[in-house]
C-alpha cells in the first residue's frame, strides 16, 4: 500500500514536471522569436563581431547612415535584426547559428564565376552580395514588415512611376533600394537574376 502511495507521488511529480515542461514549451514556442528579436539579438550582439563603425550610425567615423525606425522620427534607428532577420522560426534559429558562428564553419558560398575570371572580391563586398541575395530571395520580407506596399505615400512622381514599373516587372525592394545604409558597395552585374534570366 505504501508502495502504491509512493508510486502515486512519483507519478504526480512526473506529471507536474511534464506539465511544467509543456507550459515552458508552449511559452518557448510563442516567446522564442519575439524574445530573440527584441531582447537577445541586440545591435551590440551583432557588432560584437561585425565592425561597429560599419554597422552603427552613431559609432565614431560611422560608415552607416541612419535608417529610421519610425517614419518621421529622425532620431529613431532601425535595429540590425529589423532589416536583416526575416520573421519565422527557421530564421530565428539561423540567427542563433549565425551568432554562434556555425554559419561560418563551412565558408560562405563563393562566387566561383568571378573568381575563375580572376576577380578577387573583397570580403566586405562578398558579404553585401550575400545579404542582398537573401533580401532578393525573400522578396524584401524584412522591408515589408514596415513598408506596406499599398500604404506607401509617395512624395514625388518618380516614386509612383518606379513602383508601378517594379510591380509590373515583379521587381523587389533591394533591386532599387540598395546602398541606403551601409558603406557603398556597387551592385554586382550578376545580381538579382530570376531563374532563367541572363545578366545584361
Amino acid at each position, binding site marked *: 500500500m505504501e508502495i502504491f502511495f509512493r508510486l502515486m507521488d512519483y507519478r504526480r511529480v512526473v506529471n507536474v514536471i511534464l506539465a511544467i515542461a509543456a507550459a515552458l514549451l508552449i511559452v518557448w514556442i510563442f516567446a522564442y522569436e519575439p524574445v530573440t528579436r527584441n531582447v537577445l539579438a541586440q545591435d551590440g550582439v551583432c557588432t560584437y563581431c561585425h565592425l561597429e563603425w560599419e554597422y552603427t550610425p552613431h559609432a565614431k567615423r560611422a560608415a552607416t547612415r541612419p535608417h529610421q525606425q519610425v517614419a518621421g522620427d529622425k532620431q529613431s534607428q532601425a535595429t540590425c535584426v529589423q532589416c536583416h532577420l526575416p520573421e519565422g522560426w527557421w530564421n530565428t534559429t539561423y540567427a542563433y547559428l549565425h551568432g554562434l558562428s556555425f554559419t561560418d564553419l563551412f565558408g560562405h558560398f563563393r562566387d566561383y564565376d568571378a573568381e575563375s575570371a580572376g576577380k578577387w572580391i573583397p570580403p566586405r563586398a562578398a558579404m553585401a552580395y550575400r545579404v542582398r541575395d537573401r533580401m532578393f530571395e525573400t522578396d524584401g520580407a524584412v522591408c515589408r514588415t514596415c513598408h506596406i506596399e499599398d500604404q506607401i505615400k509617395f512624395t*514625388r*512622381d*518618380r516614386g509612383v*512611376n*518606379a513602383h508601378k*514599373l517594379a510591380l509590373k516587372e515583379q521587381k523587389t525592394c533591394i*533591386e*532599387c*533600394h*540598395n*546602398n541606403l545604409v551601409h558603406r*557603398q558597395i*556597387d*551592385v554586382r552585374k550578376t545580381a538579382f537574376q530570376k531563374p532563367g534570366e541572363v545578366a*545584361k
Partner: protein
Amino acid sequence: MKKALAILGVTALMTGPAFAADPASVDWSKVPVKSIKLFWPGQSTYQWLRSPEHKRADRQTKEGQACVACHLNEEAEIGKKLIGGHDLEPMPIEGKNGLIDLKFQVAYDSQDAYFRFQWKTLNNYAGTAHPYYRFDGKKWKAFGYPKLDAVVQDGDQPGIYEDRMSMMIDDGKVADFKGQGCWVTCHDGERDSPDLPTKAEVKANALFKHLKKKDVRKYLPSTRTDENASWDKGKTPEEIAKIKAAGGFLDLMQWRGHRSNPVGMSDDFYVLEYRNSDAGKNPFGSNSNKKTHTPKYMFDEKKVGKKALRIEDIRKMETTLIRETNAVPFDPKADWKEGDLIPKYVVSRKDSKGSAADNNRSKGVWKDGMWTVVWARKLGLTNPDDKALKAGGVYSFGFATHDDNITTRGHHVSFPYTIGFGAKADIEATKLN
C-alpha cells in the same frame, strides 16, 4: 526695276508659297499640337546616369531602362531643381528658367516631313546675335561668349550666342536611344562637362588625332571600347566605319538663329564617334583668316550702310554676315575704329552643298517673345550620313533648344519621343493631301 521686283514679291506672297513643299504653306491649324517639356539637364552625363549618384536607377539605366520609367512628367521638377545650382550644376546662371514648353507639330506628304516648333524665349529679344570679332585699336579679338564660359560668368565678356532648336533622330539602330534619348550622346569629358581633358590630352589621343579634333563632343557609346564609354577609349576608324555603314549613328540637325535662319536653312550633322558634319558644306563657316588674324569678310557698306557693327547694333538689327548678300572681302586698310564688330562666322546658302545642305527649307520668326520655326525635310534621303524618314516608319526623336546666349550642355532637352509617319507612335504625324 526695284518697283518691278517689289510687285513680283508681293504677288508671290499673295499667290502662296514659292514652292509646293514650303513648310510655311502647311495649314498648321489642322495639325495637332503636342506640348513637349524641355528641361535643364545640368551635367547629367551618360557616366553620371550609370553611377551610384543616380540613386536607385544606375543599374536600371545600365540595363537600358527608359528615363520616363521613373521620370515621367517630372521635367519641371528636375529643371527647377538643377537650374539654381546642384551637384549636377556647378555653374548656375542667374535668372535662368528650368523649363521651356515647346509646342510641336509634325506632318508629312509624299515628298517631305514638316515640323513646326514654337517656344517662348527667356529674353525679350530674338537670339540672333552670335560672337563677333572686335577691333581693339590694334587687333581683332573675340567678343561675346556663351554664358557657361568662365569669361562671361566672371563678367569679362558679354553673353552672346544664337538661339537654336535641335532634333536628334534614330531609326532604331542606336542602342538605348529610344529610352534614354540624347543622354546616350552626352559624356564626361565633353565641353562644359565634368572631367574635361586638356587640349593636349585630346590631341594626343589616337582617335582624336585621326579626327584632327582638339575637343570632345557628342559621341555614341558604341564607338568606345570600354563599358563606361570613356571619351579616350575610341575604337579604330575601321571599326567606326563599320558601325556607320550599319546605320548605328544619330542624325543631329540644328536650326540656328544666327548661322542658318537668315538663309532659310538648318544645319545637318550626325553623331557617331564625334559630332560630325554631314558630307558637303553646312550653311556657315569661320570668318577668320588664320594667316592674317583678321576677318575674311566684312559687311558691304553699300548694302548694309556700314562695314562693321557697333555694340549698340546688336539685337537691334540683323547682324548675320551673308556671303552672297551683304558681305565683301575684308579690307585691312579700311578706317577701322576701336569697338568695330564683325561676325565670327560667315553664312551662305549658295556655298552650302551636299548632304550637309539637306535642310534648306527652315525658317524661324520671332514675335512677341516667341520663336516660331517651320522646317521641311525630304523623305527617303539616301545619303550615308542621314536617317531616311519614310512613310510608314517610326523614329525616335530627341529635342533641345539653346535659349538665352548659351551653347554645349546649356540647353533645355526633352525625353525621347517616337514619331510615326503613318504609324503608331507617341506622336503621329498628320498626313497632308
